[in-house]
């Protein structure tokens, strides 16, 4: 650690390395794409890794970024070197404290993976919207553009802030830099010490608040003083740029890497100049160099220190020959006359010229533009287009580049450009499944090449917005020089393309990327002779036209035979090394083997053995295909959406699914972020290898299978015999069991074959066993491909059958309730997701009158991540109206829905009495007196409202029009706030608490996975004691917060604690009771998650274990019962019947602690066991209290 060495790492790791090495306290909160910095810091501290001064930094996870900022502020005020990591909304939540920290001239560095802000939609991707939103706080803004620079600037920023006493935001582009794998030299400890002398640290420490030398800070100042106080810091800001430059110089003297406040690249006599900051500057350097080589007088200026901006240094850095300047901002300020960097440059130059500056022959013409929002590609072609624009007499100002703006016509056109200077770079692309290890293997390859050879290596990984069956595309570059291509590999550029899953052949135009003479590697179950015929017409033509070398390997066969199961990553990696030509083959194979040994070593001798076997077998099974001269295939790529679809789906949804979203013009976009429902149904993903097949002869029609299905892919309907007259042959149905149905009624259970993900939960829950063969149930999994065609027809027919009349449904049983149509279907949630069955159930019960406020998290991603949404409508066009505001405010957001809807209803009630309308008195009376506590009541009220509207149609006045606009609010609406435990227990708890305290009728559904699932399993206050999670690598040491108990303390909140797999009827009952309660209802829904470290095919079993071990108690607390003299609390689960450890050992989140911290594991398990018994007894006592007196009191009052 003490000497400078080279690592191949991601930007986040580079920042975290320095931050952890140079701080004493780190306060964090997870947010994409900066979470990894906090996670690594926590893991390192957990391993006892020390900082430069020999102490292990204290890493603390807070309840929100606002909390993290407060803790950082406190720690800084108490003299510790303190940092944090964040992005986007997280940074916004820190703003109040940032003013304080800067206002008090406090030394600190915040490392920010810069990301878009949620506006018309949320985006997790990279741009400068967040950092530009804090430019006014008094923090310095320092931009680094590559993995190496992240490492260097993290250190320089630390040095600068201690010297200048101005806090620094050190930022780099989210994903593009934070997640890019590249090489970085790690500064030695000597360099660190030289940059951070103890005198500076002592000075920081000396400024601490201490009772030994007490001072007062944080005063309240009046009109007489505040203004002067703000101006008192000016000398620090004036001195800052030169301090930064001095630190750059000092760093250069130590490492040889020289940086400047503004760095110019290009022709010495440049006339056209591009100014920008961030990773895009690297692509700009490449492009400018190429243009200069071809004789163009262009240059680019990289901005390092944006705040405080040194106009003098800026102007000094611009060649005097410059006549025109384009300034690019990676942010958007609607309504502003130009974006921030542009305006600063204009101001600086205008002031300079205005004050008589004579560096330039004339004031340069300056235009500003926007690029790269939300990681939009920024390529050499675009850069050239901007510089070319400057050739024009009147170049377009306030332009955009990278999109097609057919609305405001802001965009510049561009042509793609492959830089000749990069001819010696080998570019490789890999198409894999998220779960097949492709990305992991590629990261490994980069490490092998980056650290084991003189070549430079770069890796960038494009993931999916879906969680089930996610596709990954890896972009790797290798070359003799440092790689600064901060954009994806373009068309005709890839020298090597690997398709790790044959199903992609019909989905992606992979070979469009292939360069002439490149190599195409396909994992195929077919031989070299047959594989050619699997290709589409287009692919065959591409292979012939581009003279590609085509190789095949049956990776699954090789992996299986080598004992690797379905893990094909080593096999595909070996093939890559064998045929890509990046390294000499034998050398490469030796290096892979070394890497395998290094990775597993003594821990995994068997894995090493199997990997070696797979490596050797891969070479033996890799075959080159003789490419015929002619195209022989008749197959074409699958259209992204099949059949007749609405125009919106055809023009937009379908294009996004096909991966052509970048080409969608501005005018096509819903400008206020409003999108249609029901689109997931168009996206037939065919993920399941096996689907359930119904055995109608032994089925008892219990309704459990549609209940547990996470993707609403198995459903039941009851219908008359006549309805199936035109059924396709093979459509199964039998007379339904149960007297509640009309005589002769038929029932079917039908699977949606192309939407099912094959999780098998329906089979697991099925309670029926074939009497003569215990291995068979009423549902049995069978391979999907042979069933697909028939089941597709059956499914289509099933959809055409009428929905069962909701008024006739018996809601108290699963068989009845599951006849209700789910209005949440085919989401992109994980295979076997433990959350979605709850949402689906809510939509079955209340979907036609639901409004959902959804906290950011998994449920907002599978609920609303484009291109499609699983929320849908019924035949009347009714369905859940859904919106995601933020992560932290969902309780408040939902309360807002309630208030507005009540206001509309009240207005409608008021208008009903309006004398000018002269409405039918009996109708009005019926509307006012309506009982809407059940389905028939709601149905009838809808009928009355229709009659009312009919009457209103005949009345010609404003009151009638007004009443028409709110009449539907006379029908009950069901308000839901839905989110995970990260929201409910942590960041949104304050709002949730306030919502409960408000007493208003809002239903709160907490999908409790006991971790922050969406961002990768970080600890929340719901995480149980003894569980390992990110930020709790040593096992969480305190018990899970008992949110039920907190809510019950209000005594007016309905509380339900449910686990659908443990007691399905209790779940159903709880949802119905909660919704019917005219006040706040809280349902805490236990949701198994992949973050638990258990295969979700055991989802149901895990829920049973959870309840049987006492980890959770099923309960319902209904305040209405008190008035009836009954105890409001009903405990629906029994005394724990199995040891807690028996449950814990089945999930890796607990069991891995025995392998990492065995003593802590034993200790925490003991505490957990004691805790569950104590809690059970507590609940048991509460549930057994006698409330018979309450009835009398109630009557008296």
């Amino acid at each position, binding site marked *: 650690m003490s000497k400078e060495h080279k690592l191949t790492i991601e930007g986040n790791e580079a920042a975290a390395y320095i931050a952890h090495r140079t701080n004493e306290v780190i306060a964090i909160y997870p947010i*994409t794409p900066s979470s990894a910095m906090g996670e690594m810091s926590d893991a390192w501290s957990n391993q006892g890794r020390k900082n430069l001064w020999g102490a292990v930094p204290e890493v603390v996870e807070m309840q929100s970024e606002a909390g993290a900022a407060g803790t950082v502020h406190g720690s800084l005020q108490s003299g510790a070197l303190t940092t944090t990591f964040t992005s986007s909304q997280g940074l916004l939540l820190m703003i109040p404290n940032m003013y304080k920290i800067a206002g008090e001239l406090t030394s600190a560095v915040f490392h920010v993976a810069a990301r878009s802000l949620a506006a018309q939609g949320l985006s997790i991707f990279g741009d400068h919207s967040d950092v530009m939103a804090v430019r006014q706080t008094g923090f310095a803004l320092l931009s680094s553009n590559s993995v190496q620079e992240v490492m260097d600037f993290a250190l320089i920023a630390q040095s600068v802030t201690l010297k200048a006493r101005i806090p620094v935001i050190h930022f780099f582009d989210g994903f593009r830099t934070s997640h890019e794998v590249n090489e970085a030299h790690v500064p030695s400890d000597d360099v660190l010490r030289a940059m951070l002398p103890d005198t500076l640290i002592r000075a920081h420490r000396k400024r601490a608040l201490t009772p030994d030398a007490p001072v007062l800070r944080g005063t309240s100042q009046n009109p007489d003083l505040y203004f002067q106080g703000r101006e008192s810091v000016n000398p620090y800001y004036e001195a800052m740029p030169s301090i930064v430059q001095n630190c750059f110089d000092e760093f250069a003297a130590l490492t040889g890497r020289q940086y400047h406040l503004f760095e110019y690249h290009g022709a010495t006599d440049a006339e056209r100049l591009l100014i920008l900051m961030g990773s895009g500057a690297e692509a700009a350097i490449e492009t400018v160099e190429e243009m200069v080589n071809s004789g163009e007088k262009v240059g680019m200026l990289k901005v390092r220190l944006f705040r405080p901006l040194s106009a003098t240094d800026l102007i000094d850095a611009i060649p005097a020959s410059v006549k025109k300047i384009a300034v690019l901002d990676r942010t958007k300020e609607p309504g502003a006359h130009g974006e921030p960097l542009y305006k600063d440059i204009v101001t600086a130059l205008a002031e300079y010229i205005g004050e008589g500056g004579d560096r330039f022959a004339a004031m340069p013409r300056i235009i500003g533009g926007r690029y790269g929002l939300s990681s939009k590609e920024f390529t050499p072609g675009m850069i050239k287009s901007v510089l070319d624009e400057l050739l024009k007499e009147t170049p377009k100002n306030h332009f955009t580049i990278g999109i097609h703006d057919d609305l405001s016509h802001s965009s510049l056109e561009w042509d793609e450009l492959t830089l000749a200077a990069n001819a010696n770079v080998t570019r490789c692309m890999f198409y894999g499944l998220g*779960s097949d290890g492709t990305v*992991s293997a590629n990261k490994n390859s980069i490490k092998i090449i980056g650290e084991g050879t003189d070549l430079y290596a770069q890796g960038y990984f494009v993931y999916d917005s879906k969680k089930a069956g996610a596709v990954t595309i890896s972009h790797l570059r290798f070359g003799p020089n440092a790689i600064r291509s901060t954009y994806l590999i373009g068309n005709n550029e890839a020298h090597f393309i690997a398709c790790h899953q044959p199903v992609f052949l019909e989905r992606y135009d992979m070979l469009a990327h292939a360069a002439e003479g490149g190599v195409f590697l396909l994992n195929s179950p077919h031989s070299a002779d047959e594989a050619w015929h699997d290709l589409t017409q287009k692919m065959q033509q591409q292979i012939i036209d581009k003279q590609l070398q085509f190789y095949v390997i049956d990776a699954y066969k090789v992996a299986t035979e080598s004992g690797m199961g379905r893990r094909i990553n080593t096999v595909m990696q070996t093939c890559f090394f064998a045929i890509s030509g990046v390294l000499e083959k034998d050398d490469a194979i030796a290096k892979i083997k070394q890497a395998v040994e290094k990775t597993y070593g003594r*821990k995994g001798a068997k894995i090493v053995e199997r990997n070696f076997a797979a490596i050797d077998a891969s070479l033996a099974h890799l075959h080159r295909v003789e490419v015929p001269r002619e195209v022989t295939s008749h197959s074409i790529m699958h259209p992204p959406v099949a059949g007749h679809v609405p125009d919106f789906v055809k023009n937009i949804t379908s294009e996004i699914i096909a991966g052509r979203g970048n080409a969608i013009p501005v005018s096509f976009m819903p400008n206020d972020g409003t999108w249609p429902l029901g689109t997931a149904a168009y996206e037939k993903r065919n993920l399941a290898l096996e689907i359930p097949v119904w055995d109608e002869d032994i089925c008892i029609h219990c309704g459990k299978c549609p209940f547990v299905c996470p993707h609403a892919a198995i459903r039941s309907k009851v219908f008359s015999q006549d309805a199936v007259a035109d059924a396709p042959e093979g459509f199964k149905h039998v007379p339904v069991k149960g007297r509640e149905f009309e005589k002769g009624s038929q029932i079917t259970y039908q699977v949606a074959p192309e939407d099912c993900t094959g999780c098998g939960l329906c089979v697991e829950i099925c309670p029926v066993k074939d009497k003569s063969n215990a291995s068979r149930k009423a549902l049995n999994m069978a391979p999907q491909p042979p069933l697909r065609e028939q089941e597709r027809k059956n499914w289509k027919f099933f959809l055409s059958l009428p929905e069962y009349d909701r008024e006739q449904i018996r809601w108290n049983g699963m068989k009845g309730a599951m006849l209700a149509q789910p209005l949440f279907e085919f989401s992109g949630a994980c295979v076997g997701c433990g959350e979605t069955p709850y949402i689906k159930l809510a939509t079955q019960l209340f979907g036609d009158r639901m409004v959902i406020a959804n906290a950011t998290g998994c449920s907002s991603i599978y609920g609303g991540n484009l291109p499609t949404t699983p929320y849908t409508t019924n035949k009347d066009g009714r369905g859940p109206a859904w919106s995601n505001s933020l992560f932290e405010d969902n309780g408040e957001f939902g309360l807002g829905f309630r208030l507005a809807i009540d206001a509309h209803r009240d207005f409608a009630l008021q208008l009903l009495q309006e004398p000018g309308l002269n409405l039918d008195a009996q109708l009005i009376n019926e509307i006012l007196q309506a009982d809407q506590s059940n389905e028939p009541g709601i149905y009838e009220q809808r009928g009355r409202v229709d009659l009312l509207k009919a009457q209103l149609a005949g009345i010609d006045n404003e009151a009638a029009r007004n009443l028409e606009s709110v009449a539907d609010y006379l029908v009950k609406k069901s308000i839901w706030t839905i989110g995970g435990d990260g929201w409910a227990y942590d960041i949104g708890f304050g709002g949730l608490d306030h919502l409960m305290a408000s007493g208003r009728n809002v239903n709160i559904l907490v999908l409790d996975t006991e971790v922050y699932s*969406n961002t990768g399993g970080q600890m929340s206050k719901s995480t149980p004691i003894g569980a390992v999670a*990110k930020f709790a690598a040593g096992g969480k040491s305190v018990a899970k917060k008992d949110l039920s108990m907190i809510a019950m303390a209000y005594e007016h909140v309905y509380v339900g604690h449910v686990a659908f797999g443990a007691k399905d009827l209790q779940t159903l009952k709880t949802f119905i009771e909660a919704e019917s309660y005219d006040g706040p209802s809280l349902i805490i829904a236990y949701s198994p998650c992949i973050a638990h470290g258990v295969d979700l095919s055991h989802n149901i079993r895990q829920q049973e274990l959870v309840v049987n071990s006492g980890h959770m108690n099923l309960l319902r607390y209904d305040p209405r019962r008190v008035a009836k003299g009954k105890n409001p609390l009903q405990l629906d689960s029994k005394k724990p019947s199995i040891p807690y450890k028996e449950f814990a050992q089945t999930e890796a989140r607990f069991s891995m602690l025995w392998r990492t911290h065995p003593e802590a594991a034993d200790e925490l398990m003991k505490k957990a066991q004691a805790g569950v018994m104590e809690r059970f007894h507590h609940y048991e006592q509460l549930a057994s209290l006698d409330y018979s007196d309450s009835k009398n009191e109630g009557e008296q009052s």
Partner: protein
Amino acid sequence: MIDLSTTYLGMKLKNPLVPSASPLAKDLNACKRLEDAGASAIVMNSLFEEEVNADEERLDHLMHFQDIGHFEAASYLPAEESYKTQLESYLEQLESLKQSLEIPVIASLNGTTPSGWTRHAKQLQEAGANALELNVYYMPADITQSSDAVEVRYVDILTEVKKQVDIPVIMKLSSQFSSVGNFVQKLESAGANGVSLFNRYYLPDIDLDTLEVIPSLKLSSSVESRLSMRWIALLRGRVNLTLAATSGIHSADDAIKMLLAGADVTHMCSALLRHGPDHLTEVLKGIESWMEENEYSSVTQLKGSVSHAKATDPTAFERSNYIKILNSFDSPDGVWR
């Protein structure tokens, strides 16, 4: 002074009581207590190759296969460098037992594949094991496999392991062989230094509520020692390798019977789990006082004195109890009716 010493796998032990593979060996404290209670050697809990493999798989999953391909999360559980596999823990446990105990420590290996057996055997030897117990349990569920083939499998494993290690190797067997004696002879020829008779296994049970097959195992009882006793008695004097008696030895009487039948050592597990390590002292005292009462001077003298070769009625070891009971009204020899 009664000489309790015995020879086990070429090692001289101070007495014949050797705790067999049990969870007690996982606890250093419990092992110290066993040693203090008089244990003359200790067989560690088994290292199951299946568990080692599963553990490696878990580690592999943690390190490389947590990714589901979503932008926001590349993993869900922190893959810590401090993750210790079962194998590492076992080797550490062996090392620490060797450091803390003076009595020999026998490592126990339950393997499933040839490579697993040999690689792990070497590692156990390197970590200081005094001997190795191979706990082979192969269930020939494939009914096309002949009994010969099954036996060959055992012999092959033993041969491979013997090639790799210098320390003595004892085979722990089940009783499920057509000709136990003949098979033990084959193992001896293949280089086994001893056999431990007989192993007890989990047996399948059917849950009447779920109709699922579940494994079940109950602690042994004294009755179960009789099968081992029979075969030890039959083998004593006919083979030269160490005979270790295991299963159902709970009391001094059980142990004495085994020694009389010909065991070199008697293993104990269930009784120690049930009564704690100190139970061993009681058993030892019991053996001693029985020998004293019956005027035996050494275990060597006692060992095998009622074996098949030396029993008053050797055929009793050969007959099944059923016939014995039918004929139990017969008068003893020398008594006229």
